[in-house]
């Protein structure tokens, strides 16, 4: 064993073994053997294996993140993109402009309220289905899990277009159904031909149903996977003691699955807070300003004429910072579960 410790290779590891020794096959070029020896001596194998993925992630994810931060402090608009004028540092002026913009506060409010409603609903629906799947007999479990899988497999854009059609004022089945239900149940609104897209509340109701439909299968499958690890004796003991189902959930299931719930909670917040494709389409492709969320607002600033990449970048940075706070929670939760071993 050499004295360098920067890369302590696992002596039994696959590629260690290969890269290191056993270069006995005939016809190998001396240069190749020399490279092999060099790699072994400096324990470069893991780094060489990481280079391709690191290059891809670095160039296409990390570097753009840095750029977003840079643009947000500059005046980066059409002349700067085309190279006609150099970009200038403008300090925090983009951020002060955003904080003064009432549209920013509307979109921040929409994002927060939406996440506050959708995340719990998705978790409750998914957990409910997960618990149900755990109690169902084989055939019924197969039925429910297959339909959930179909909802999950449906591409985002298909799902969005379907919901648009279900909620369409002309010929949509939702308006038709609501118009036929008794008033005491659905309120006295004239539901026939009700337009769901021209005010924030109906649009976000639609978006909520869409995202719960798309999101609950993942929660259900994860919760089910967790439930399979709970020792059945615990439930038997609780049953013998005559515990109610709610008490069993509160006292046994929830504490044991807490790490899974935490990860699901954080992931759902990250996915739903600035949700883009579904919201972009349902709110009429940037047409209705009072229906923006943070993701749409950043996109609109950056890509509608005249494009202000700097304002878009500043907003994107604010969105990223909010999600990063959540991410820190996610990473800490994962590390605590021993995910890095």
């Amino acid at each position, binding site marked *: 064993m050499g004295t360098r410790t920067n890369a302590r290779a696992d002596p039994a590891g696959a590629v260690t073994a290969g890269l290191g020794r056993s270069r006995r096959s005939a016809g190998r070029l001396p240069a190749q053997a020399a490279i092999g020896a060099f790699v072994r001596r400096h324990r470069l194998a893991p780094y060489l294996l990481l280079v391709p993925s690191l290059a891809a992630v670095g160039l296409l994810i990390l570097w753009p993140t840095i*750029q977003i931060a840079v643009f947000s402090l500059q005046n980066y608009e059409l002349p700067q993109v085309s190279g006609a004028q150099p970009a200038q540092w403008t300090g925090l002026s983009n951020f002060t402009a955003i904080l003064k913009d009432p549209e920013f506060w509307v979109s921040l409010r929409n994002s927060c309220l939406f996440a506050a409603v959708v995340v719990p609903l998705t978790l409750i629906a998914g957990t409910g289905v997960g618990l149900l799947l755990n109690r169902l007999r084989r055939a019924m479990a197969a039925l429910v899990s297959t339909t959930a899988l179909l909802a999950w497999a449906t591409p985002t854009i298909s799902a969005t277009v379907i919901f648009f059609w*279900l909620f369409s004022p002309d010929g949509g089945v939702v308006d038709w159904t609501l118009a036929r239900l008794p008033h005491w149940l659905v309120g006295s609104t004239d539901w026939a031909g009700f337009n769901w897209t021209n005010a924030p509340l109906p649009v976000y109701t639609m978006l909520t149903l869409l995202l719960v439909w798309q999101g609950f299968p993942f929660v259900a499958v994860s919760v089910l996977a967790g439930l399979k690890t709970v020792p059945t004796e615990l439930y038997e003991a609780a049953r013998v003691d005559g515990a109610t189902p709610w008490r069993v959930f509160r006292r046994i299931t929830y504490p044991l699955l807490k790490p899974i719930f935490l990860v699901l909670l954080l992931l759902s917040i990250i996915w739903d807070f600035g949700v883009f494709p579904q919201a972009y389409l349902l709110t009429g492709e940037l047409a209705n300003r009072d229906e923006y969320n943070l993701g749409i607002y950043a996109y609109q600033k950056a890509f509608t004429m005249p494009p202000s990449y700097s304002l878009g970048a500043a907003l994107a940075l604010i969105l990223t910072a909010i999600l990063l706070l959540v991410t820190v929670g996610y990473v800490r939760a994962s590390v605590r579960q021993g995910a890095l071993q």
Partner: protein
Amino acid sequence: MTAIPRRPGVSPRTSRTLRRAGINTLAVVIALLTLFPILWMISTAFKPATEIFSLTPHPLPAHPTMTNFHQVLNGSVIGYSFWRFFANSLFVTLTAVVASSLLALLAAVAVARFRFRFRTSYLIMLLAVQMLPQQALVIALFIDFRAVNLLDSLTGLMLAYTAFALPISIWMLRNFVATVPKELEEAAAIDGAGPARIFWRILFPLVAPGLVATSVFSFIFAWNEFTFALTFLGTDQVKYTLPIYVTYFFNRGGADWGAVMAASTMYTIPPIVFFLLIQRRMAKGLVAGAVKG
């Protein structure tokens, strides 16, 4: 069994049967609710216009027609057939899946088999990077792609998809690599097998199920991806991928729900077939990757 609390006058068996019936009814209701949007899409796709805008919608078409599908396939709305965009989506998705699986496998071997400096930082970086919102990064990527002429290009899209599929793929695959017994590789090395041989003959076949599970995620991601495609494929309609095509169709044909549903039905078939084929494996992959991670 005797300790089940029971209501007076109801035998334990009846109570159990009732409860089972209740649970099964609930299951059927949930399954129907979940399936309803998909069924409605398919049924609308087969309805003639008169039935689509009928004042009383019916769950099934009374006179099923292929008109909507013909309209989508002969390209009467956008000028190109559905197959043009299908081919674009398939190209971008498959190349991205293969590229990201390969890069992820290399990285997964490094992370699962070696202990080296920056290993933990690398893993935390991967975890954090997954959370960066695409709708934020798209602004910078648009400017970069513009600078290197990758706008309106399927290659550019493929590169972006490869990179964005990587973190979750590496994260999931490393668990699969870790389960392959090291002794096998050791034995092969002692017998004189080189690194390439060990990789292809021993590690690769054993990690294959894991690769299938991670490919599902990359496939779904690339097949579904909307934000990048919307932004990068601005003007060149021939290059559109299916999600952009479906929404374009949906805008132009505003009221033509039959055609939109036919297009989105065909767009939805590949991932659904894919999911059903590997349903079992995917559940396992999820357990190994998503839940643990």
